[in-house]
Every structure is written in C-alpha cells, then in structure tokens.
C-alpha cells in the first residue's frame, strides 16, 4: 500500500473535477477532495515515519480548511441567490451582459 500514490490519485480526481465541472457546488467538492489528498499525504507519511510533529501541524490545516470552506460556501450561497443559478457558464454570461449594459 503506497499512500503517496493514493494521495496522487485523489489529487488527480480533484483536479479533474475542478477542470470539468461547471456547477459551483461540484467545484467546491473538488477543492475539498484536493485538500483531503494533501491531508492524507502529510498525515500518513508522518505516521508511517513515526513523526508526531507532522500530525500536530495538520491540526491547524484542518481548521484553516474548514474556515476556507465556510467562506467559500457563504459566497456560493450569496452568488446563487443573487443570480438564481450556480452554473459557472451562465454566471459568466450574466457578468458579460452586465458589463455590456454598463458600457
């Protein structure tokens, strides 16, 4: 069992979702998967080497990740409530239309 390869596969799945999905919530899920891959890599390497320090540093990473998730989610809800959609393509079109109207 190799945790580096496991983390790499998780990272690739996250990047694939980030590049291909158009829904904001799916993009957020992809970001969560990428963060999970990084966490997995650090924690499992630290525990396999018997380094408690690596695990200790991850505690701050968890709370930072959660805070970032909260901020992203609140922005996501605000945007989708304001524009009535969570599709990135439609949001970009709306932004272009707004710019044209302003011009």
């Amino acid at each position, binding site marked *: 069992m*190799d945790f580096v390869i496991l983390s790499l*596969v998780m990272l690739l799945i996250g990047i694939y979702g980030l590049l291909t999905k158009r829904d904001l*919530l799916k993009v957020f899920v992809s970001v969560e*998967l990428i963060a999970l891959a990084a966490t997995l890599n650090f*924690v499992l390497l630290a525990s396999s080497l018997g380094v*408690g320090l690596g*695990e200790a540093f*991850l*505690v701050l990473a968890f709370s930072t990740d959660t805070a970032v998730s909260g901020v992203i989610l609140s922005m996501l809800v605000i945007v989708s409530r304001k524009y009535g959609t969570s599709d990135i393509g439609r949001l970009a079109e709306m932004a272009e239309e707004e710019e044209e109207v302003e011009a």
Partner: protein
Amino acid sequence: MVTEIIIEILSAGLIISACLAIFFEEAIYSVAALAGAFFLTAMVFALNGAVYVAIFQFAVGVGTLAVLFLSGEMLSEKYKKKTPLKSVVAVLFVGLLLSLPAIFFSIPMTTATGYGISFEESLWTFRAPDVVLQGLVMMTVAVGIAIVLYDRKMGDR
C-alpha cells in the same frame, strides 16, 4: 496483515467515493459520497496510528458536511437530470481501477528522519500558541452566533 488488507479495502473505497462525489449529478448524492470519503479517510488515519488526527478529521468532516448538506439542498436545481445507473456502475469500476496502483505499486523512500516525539508532545512544544488561538477563535465564533441569534429572537418579539 489483516490491518493492511483492511486499509487497502478502505483506500479503494475512498477513491470510489471520491469518483462518485465528482460524477453524481445530484448535489445531495455528491455530498453524501464526499461524506463517505471523509469517513473512510478518518478510518484510514485511525488504522495507521494517527488516532488524534482521525478524531479531528471526523469532527471537522461532520461540521463541513452539515453545512454542505444545507447548501446542497438550497442550491440544487430541481430540473436537473438524474445520474443513470449505468454511469454509476461505470464510475465504481473506474474508481476500483484507479485504486489498483496505490495497492500494488510503491515509491521507495530513502530518507526517514523522525524526531521521535509524540503527537501530544509536539503539539504543546511547537503549536501551543496556535492551539490557544484556535480555541479563542472558536469561542468568539460561538459567542458571535449566540449574539446574532439573541438579536434575531429579540427582533422577532
């Protein structure tokens, strides 16, 4: 040996959950698959000896997922088409294939420089200010939420 097999099965499940989280069309199912990924990660951590991190992962995962479920319910569009069963089976198969390299291959590591100190020791030696500050931040958030809820309650009256 048995633990290793369990970890391999959990890792395969983790990759399959991640694939499902990306490929499900419905937001709620996607979040449920992500919940599975979080839970399996916590299990892998625990089985590898990182019990404290597993507990943190579980606690943080529960909080994140509760908010995600609410947001997913709010943001999901009703007219969206459902994921066909054939696609789900295909994704399960792809996830299983993707988990094979992690199970059968390994990257050799030549450097193993451990400090030889435990999690608790390193947490309090190197991270004491962070831990205290995190506690303060959480307490401030809790007090802030309580104040907002109290204001809203008084405003309703």
